[in-house]
């Protein structure tokens, strides 16, 4: 069970300095990580015989930017009370979270392929008691956002400079709880909270527009007094820049509306709502997807073994 920060240790840690220029290798490293995230997620969903590939593909670049650059969060600091927190509110993208965790040392790459299997810690949706580094259990849309808000509030009360990031799906925004939290975060001026919307324009059954219209989305959050930044959710420098801008926002929570492509990187999945899943991938589909995502023959053999 989580321990509070001792009162004599509630001094703020140093705040983040804005990067003047991105290190030259960083963007390439993150792009490679994002490719791995997509490949690993496809492989784990293939082995599981079910899972949600579309929304895992769309958020891979965002996850790679967070874990590869933005989060003050490392495998040996999972218990550090001043760590940054990341909450996957769209819990059905768990395969992508496990993959990015595996890439950055929070879990084992091979074990993470046991997604959705009996006795595996890698459940269909993340569970914090199985893996502390996922920060909270998600899978019921809207709740992760509120939990992240509570974390941001708790960190402020304890005078920590740590930041909290929550990744939401676009369909998730139809949950009323999201707007309760949006109002609450602005009211409490939680500038240590950054929400990111994986805006791939599709949800389980159809396009957002057909199910329940979200637009004008940026205007809605601006009206709730959030600092809103719209970005291309597959452009790594743009994501990194927006995360930096968000971290220097004062007095308001910040929102990144990341325009993404559902199924990004797998041609037969891109912009086809049925790949929201949960779907069963055939071996041929998995091979095709991995090849399209840049995996070598050997890597494909290893992933699918």
């Amino acid at each position, binding site marked *: 069970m989580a321990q509070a*920060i001792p009162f004599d240790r509630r001094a703020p840690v140093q705040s983040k300095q804005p990067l003047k220029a991105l290190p030259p290798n960083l963007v390439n490293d993150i792009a490679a990580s994002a490719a791995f995230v997509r490949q690993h997620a496809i492989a784990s969903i293939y082995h599981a015989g079910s899972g949600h590939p579309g929304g895992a593909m769309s958020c891979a670049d965002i996850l790679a930017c967070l874990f590869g650059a933005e989060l003050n969060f490392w495998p040996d600091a999972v218990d550090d009370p001043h760590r940054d927190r990341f909450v996957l509110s769209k819990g059905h993208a768990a395969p992508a979270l496990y993959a990015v965790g595996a890439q950055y040392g929070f879990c084992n790459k091979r074990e993470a392929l046991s997604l959705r299997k009996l006795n595996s810690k890698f459940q269909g949706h993340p*569970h*914090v008691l199985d893996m502390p580094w996922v920060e909270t259990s998600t899978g019921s849309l809207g*709740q992760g956002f509120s*939990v992240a808000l*509570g974390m941001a509030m*708790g960190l402020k*009360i304890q005078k920590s400079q740590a930041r909290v990031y929550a990744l939401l799906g676009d369909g998730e925004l139809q949950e009323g709880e999201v707007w309760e939290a949006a109002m*609450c975060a602005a009211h409490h001026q939680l500038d240590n909270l950054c929400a990111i919307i994986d805006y791939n324009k599709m949800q389980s059954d159809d396009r957002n527009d057909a199910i329940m219209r979200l637009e004008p989305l940026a205007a809605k959050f601006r009206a709730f007094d959030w600092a809103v930044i719209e970005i291309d959710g597959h452009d790594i420098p743009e994501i990194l820049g927006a995360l930096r801008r968000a971290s220097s926002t004062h007095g308001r929570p910040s929102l990144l509306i990341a325009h993404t492509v559902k199924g990004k990187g797998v041609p037969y999945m891109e912009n086809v709502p049925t790949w929201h899943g949960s779907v069963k991938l055939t071996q041929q589909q998995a091979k095709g997807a991995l090849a399209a995502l840049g995996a070598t023959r050997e890597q494909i053999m290893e992933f699918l073994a």
Partner: protein
Amino acid sequence: MSAAPALIAQGNDSLREAFGKALSSLADEFKDVVVLDADIAGGTGVHHFRKSHPDRFLQFGIAEQNMMAAAGGLAATGLIPIVTTFAVFCLRAVEQARLSLAYAGRNAKIVASHPGLDVGPDGGSAQALEDMAAFRAIPGMTVISPADPIEMKLATRAMLEFKGPVYMRTGRSPAKRVFGDDHKFEIGKGHIVRDGKDVTIVACGVEVARAVEAADLLAAEGIDARVVNMATIKPIDKQLLIRCAKHTGAFVTAEDHNILGGLGGAVAESLAATMPCPIEFVGVKDAFGASGEPEELAEQFGLTAPHIAEAARRAIARKKKAK
């Protein structure tokens, strides 16, 4: 000159006031406690805490789902969040309590005022008769319903000392004193308020006082009834129930709640698996409440001492028939 109206029951002997005062007085000892409110602090008793510890009082507005899940986030940073609202609005956030508190293993507390018919005039929409059943079905959730202001004070401390998610009922209306200042409270332990050998009346919350009254009525006709205060509905005190089954062989359960899934359900499940014997259920019989004063409603819905006594006679008759 205008004066602000006094809120009903503030300053009286209600369980919510006892809770609010206890929480405020314990706050300096439990420094990581934060209180979450959804704009009804005056009704839940935490107006005392708001006054004594404003910096640890968190306003969530009228938005219980966000409040309940946010408690999970606060607990994740090591604070001890106390979610406070009316019992009926806790029902609105059961799923948040399930996923973000219980499933995530958080040390968070939910304290629900205005449970049962005890709500009175606000009527059926406001009277939660399902809350103990709903929260009891959540794995890892401890469910408590103290009987009087003395026990409420002790239970508040016990709840703060306990590690894990707790759902605790308080109460709106003035509560009768059942216990003396020497009363002891422990989570998971029932206790015999009054001994007897013919039948065991197991009660919680406001029904404990009525159960004691019922035992008096039964004594007048030569029936020796045992009264058990089962303030912890989950985990239920199985050992005590087994002992009572051996000693008395007949049960009545009494609760200000639907007879389905609450205290009656818990007792029946426990005894069915250990020492089956006749059980009669006093509570609201799978119906919604209505407007009226709490005592009028208790009479109409069959929750008063005479109803408990009548149920005890039935249980004893069934026991004799089975022999």
